[in-house]
């Protein structure tokens, strides 16, 4: 496979991860088939379905069990703390007191945050996945609660503000609004709706009347059985049985966040969503710990209220990638451990020697970044990083290679790396304004060749990479 094919594979793999899967998908397919009028036996398939459905997506529920009183929920504070606002907030005209704003997270990422007073809820959602997708409008949520006659749906939009409308059951049009406070990276849209309107779609129209986007309001999760108790978990999360009741459904402020089966012998199941990690484990598991690249978090489990001998948990997600999670019994003995390391096998198949960590990348989002040499069949030596491989042009052509943009707390940076030539003694990024950013070399353990890397601020305009050869010769400039 050549370079373009390898890059294509990696790019498609990356983009594919940006498409969310709605927890209500199974219900929606079932609704469509029933609508088609052809009777056919639906297999009792909660377990199989949950494998696909236990993913996270924004979706709307029209009914939801009573919300927990989240007045004293430190997890909600954690979910919105630590971000710096980008522009002012937008307060929606709704009794729930919902407020939305953009923020820059601890590590430079852009987030859109919300806080709702009644019932109390809040959180932030990183916008990168939305930006990478081909979607122009993002549905973020609703203030709808069980029995509410009026509520507001809201989200964010890319591009010039557009007209937001919804068509009601009787054919009348409801108008929403868009607002982009100064400093906010994109507009926030909202639309006031009534339960009686049975709105199924929200439409976005451009200035010239062209349709820009359509958001569907998803079908309902099954409501809980009336006598079946719901369980309140940290973060304003509500768990109740549905589908049979062979599944447990997790919702938050009216939004289904995930669904997973209740096994007789419970397989540990963990679902990420809205800044939380939550799931179901065996009843013997008294404590769950999650290990991230930068540390560990833990939480005590809560026994299920349905007498199934299971336990549930919820805790805030970490800042870096998760590497494993484990269950401990009441005495602290580890009962099981599930490894969840990011699938780097794809990029590490042909590794030569041990990887090295890019200095300074430990604190960056998605970091730390690692580099290594690889001997790819048919392509020879390549320089590989956590995010992919590039050919090693370590000949006289000069510094070519890959770049990674990181967003550190101190500001965004670009890290570039590649294969170093035999006689290179220095590598320096030279900015158009004359600033110089010296790089350095590293030889991964066990590898016969060196790698170069350098870092500079993301806003620096790099005019050339200067390479020193240490043979009395001046630096050679390689224009960028």
């Amino acid at each position, binding site marked *: 496979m050549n370079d373009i094919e390898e890059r294509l594979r990696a*790019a498609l793999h990356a983009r594919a991860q940006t498409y969310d899967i709605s927890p209500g*998908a199974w219900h929606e397919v079932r609704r469509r088939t029933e609508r088609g009028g052809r009777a056919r036996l639906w297999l009792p398939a909660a377990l*199989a379905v949950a494998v696909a459905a236990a993913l996270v997506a924004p979706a709307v529920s029209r009914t939801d069990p009573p919300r927990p009183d989240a007045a004293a929920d430190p997890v909600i504070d954690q979910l919105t703390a630590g971000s710096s606002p980008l522009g002012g907030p937008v307060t929606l005209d709704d009794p729930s007191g919902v407020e939305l704003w953009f923020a820059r997270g601890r590590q430079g990422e852009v987030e859109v945050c919300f806080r709702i007073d009644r019932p109390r809820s809040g959180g932030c959602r990183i*916008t990168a996945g939305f930006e990478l997708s081909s979607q122009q409008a993002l549905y973020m949520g609703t203030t709808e609660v069980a029995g509410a006659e009026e509520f507001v749906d809201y989200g964010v939009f890319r591009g010039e503000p557009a007209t937001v409308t919804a068509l009601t059951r009787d054919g009348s049009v409801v108008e929403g609004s868009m607002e982009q406070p100064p400093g906010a990276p994109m507009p926030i849209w909202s639309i006031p709706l009534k339960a009686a309107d049975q709105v199924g779609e929200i439409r976005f129209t451009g200035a010239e009347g062209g349709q820009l986007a359509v958001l569907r309001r998803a079908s309902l999760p099954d409501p809980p059985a009336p006598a079946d108790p719901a369980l309140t978990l940290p973060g304003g999360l509500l768990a109740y049985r549905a589908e049979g009741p062979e599944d447990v459904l997790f919702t938050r402020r009216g939004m289904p966040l995930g669904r997973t089966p209740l096994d007789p012998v419970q397989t540990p199941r963990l679902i990420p969503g809205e800044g939380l990690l939550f799931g179901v484990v065996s009843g013997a598991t008294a404590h769950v710990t999650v290990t991230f690249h930068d540390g560990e978090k833990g939480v005590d489990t809560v026994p299920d209220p349905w007498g199934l001998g299971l336990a549930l948990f919820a805790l805030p997600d970490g800042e870096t*990638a998760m590497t494993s999670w484990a269950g401990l019994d009441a005495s602290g003995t580890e009962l099981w451990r599930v490894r969840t390391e990011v699938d780097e096998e794809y990029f590490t198949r042909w590794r030569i020697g041990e990887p090295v960590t890019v200095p300074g990348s430990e604190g960056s989002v998605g970091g730390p970044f690692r580099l290594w040499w690889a001997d790819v069949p048919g392509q020879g030596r390549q320089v590989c990083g956590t995010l992919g491989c590039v050919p090693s042009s370590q000949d006289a052509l000069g510094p070519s290679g890959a770049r990674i943009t990181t967003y550190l707390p101190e500001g965004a940076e670009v890290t570039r790396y590649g294969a170093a030539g035999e006689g290179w003694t220095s590598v320096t990024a030279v900015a158009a304004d004359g600033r110089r950013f010296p790089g350095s070399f590293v030889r991964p353990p066990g590898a016969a060749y060196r790698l170069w890397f350098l870092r500079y601020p993301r806003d620096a305009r790099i005019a050339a990479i200067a390479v020193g050869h240490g043979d009395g010769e001046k630096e050679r400039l390689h224009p960028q």
Partner: protein
Amino acid sequence: MESPTVARETPSFAELFASQYAAMVRLAGLLGADDPEDIAQEAFARLHRRTLRDAGSSLAYLRSTVCNLTRNRIRHLRIARLRRPEPPEPVPSGEHQALVAEQHRELLGALDRLPRRQREALVLRYWLDLSEREIAEAMGVSAGSVKTHMSRALATLRGTL
């Protein structure tokens, strides 16, 4: 993390849904659908309403349906979007996806600009790892056409990047 699915010669509809729904959503998205979930759900609904002569061909049927529905949807939207402004450049953000986007933006942009059939062939080959025969089946064209689409697409990408 999840328990392995029990292997059977012919998976039930629910097992097929569990194992393939996410892939079909992503296939529709990669092919350019504006609402990938809608496409995937409709494909599964059509499969459920249909009795296939060969039960083992369900997956091929799904792939083909996703391709067709996406194609129709894009055709439908093309007229509505004639005056649609170009989306703005993504603003910097810090999630892992943003880092990936930074690396792949140019290539993905070039992929999006390819003719529809060429883009389909590349997505089916390099994301789903399908053989030429399987791609031909999903696209409803001959294996020879697949070869032509692929080679032209790769040549365009090489020339663009």
